[in-house]
């Protein structure tokens, strides 16, 4: 794979030296810029409050206090907030799959009358900046039209709007469009109805796109802040992010940092395990050069 720098120049002695210097500099800069802050947070959590207040800060803790993590877990009631966040993210994920997969399949393979109008109306919502819908959606959630339910402090306030995700529909439909119609036709001749075809034939070959949509859904729900901040005024119902910024004022710094490290772990582990799907999801929505 040939790139900007010519292979000839790289083979020369001078080229090798320049490459080595550039490579080492990049390695050092990347480590300092992206990994060092994480080291700082993890070690900072294990410093004593007195040491954290020292100017200038110490590079390595003088005394190690790993018990900060346990103390943070206790004081912040982290178990409860982890459960809240898992409930919010898990529900948002399942509902997105349950709602968006059948819809994308219907639009792609059954091609109902006015299907293109429906698709256009759905994709049209992508043009709206999310923030512009914040207030009217909040007003809607406090009093659902026709049903007159108030979803404030209920995880459904996150789940239901999350399912109205045009980007999911777009990704899934694009994938289903590439599955040959003959496959659906063959299943029909064997006497399978559309729902069985979706379940038995389409879903098993759609695993890659389902993985991408799942990861995107879970990561987005875990990172979300402004919407959960609005719909969970009750502290007992809040997600990790909303709780962390609420307790900032009255918590010793070492416990706060420990809490933040713990709250970040699940996504980092998820990333290390599902790198491939996450990076695939990244370019799924973008475009070819």
């Amino acid at each position: 794979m040939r790139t900007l720098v010519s292979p000839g120049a790289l083979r020369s002695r001078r080229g090798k030296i320049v490459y080595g210097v550039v490579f080492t500099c990049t390695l050092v800069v990347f480590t300092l810029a992206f990994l060092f802050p994480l080291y700082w947070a993890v070690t900072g959590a294990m410093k004593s409050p007195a040491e954290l207040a020292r100017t200038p800060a110490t590079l390595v803790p003088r005394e190690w206090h790993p018990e900060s993590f346990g103390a943070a877990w206790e004081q912040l009631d982290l178990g409860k907030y982890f459960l809240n966040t898992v409930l919010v993210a898990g529900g948002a994920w399942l509902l997105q799959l349950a709602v968006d997969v059948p819809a994308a399949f219907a639009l792609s393979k059954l091609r109902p009358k006015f299907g293109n109008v429906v698709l256009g109306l759905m994709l049209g919502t992508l043009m709206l900046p999310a923030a512009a819908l914040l207030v009217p959606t909040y007003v809607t959630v406090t009093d659902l039209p026709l049903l007159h339910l108030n979803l404030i402090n209920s995880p459904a306030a996150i789940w239901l709007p999350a399912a109205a995700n045009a980007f999911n529909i777009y990704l899934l439909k694009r994938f289903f469009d590439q599955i040959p119609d003959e496959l659906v036709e063959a299943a029909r001749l064997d006497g399978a109805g559309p729902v069985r075809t979706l379940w038995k034939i389409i879903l098993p070959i759609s695993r890659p796109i389902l993985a991408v949509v799942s990861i995107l859904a879970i990561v987005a729900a875990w990172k979300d802040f402004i919407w959960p901040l609005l719909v969970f005024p009750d502290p007992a119902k809040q997600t990790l992010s909303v709780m962390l910024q609420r307790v900032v004022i009255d918590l010793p710094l070492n416990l706060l940092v420990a809490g933040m490290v713990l709250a970040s772990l699940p996504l980092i582990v998820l990333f290390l395990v599902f790198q491939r799907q996450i990076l695939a999801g990244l370019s799924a929505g973008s475009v070819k050069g």
Partner: protein
Amino acid sequence: MSSPRSGSVLDWPAVSTRAGRRTPTEAERRRSRLRRKIRDNITAYGLLCAALVVFAMFSWYPIVRGVLLSFQQVDFVNPPTWVGFDNFTRLFEDPLFGVAWRNTVLFTGFALVFGFLVPFLTAVLLNELRHARAFFRLAVYLPVMLPPVVTALLWKWFYDPGPGLFNSALHALGLPGPQWLDSSGTAMLSLVFVSTWANMGSTTLIYLAALQTIPGELYEAAELDGAGMWRRLRHVTFPQTRFVLLVLLLLQIVATMQVFTEPYVMTGGGPDDSTVTVLLLLYRYAFVYNDFGSASAMSLLLFVALGVFSAMYVRLTRRADA
């Protein structure tokens, strides 16, 4: 439903054989096709119905509701009353309104300088390196995986002028440290740094993917024509990635104009209102002053301001897909 019989001489009345099987007539075939079409439509709308309900309730209805709210006075006790353009005049009379727009445009401008150039140059650099590629990709994307609130709170602590990481590091190098978030001159720029650090992972990797699709022959041809490295960058790399650059430019304008978490968590809009952004002010109107009408008017203005960029983005990506 009966269909007219076609009057062809070849049309025999259908005769059932003893086995109960017969060849279906054209009319019957048409009818069964129609039945199948109707059945397919019913199934399709059955599968679509959940999506239609959530979109109607949480996307389409709020869009209409938002426009209506902009011209109404709302409290949650009395029914809403129509007030014409009062909400807008109230906004324009608020001295913070102009400040918020100016700050937001400033943030977007800075964020583009850093968040646009830095990731592209990083991607070009990474594309040249032959070793430790997985590590670089992982490292640059790690901050994207942190919850934005955690990132904001961490950096607030890094920025602490006394025991904070940055000024401690500058101190160790014998340099004076700036006041970061505590001075109205540097607060906004400090927020831009956080936001760039947190988000550059995705843009860098998208550029990197685009760079990897550039055919090597183009570089070879340019080299044979005697183009040096900079000219190759200008005449091969740039034009080949122009489309991705444009799409991400639009995307970043739309995203950064909606900045909220960083100022809300790190500065609360201070010092001296130097980091009050449009979304922060919108939040105050709705959830501090409980003035949903003015907040909706502000949303509408934000939509108008960003609509151009969003529409261009959607059109571009659609065209690329077609």
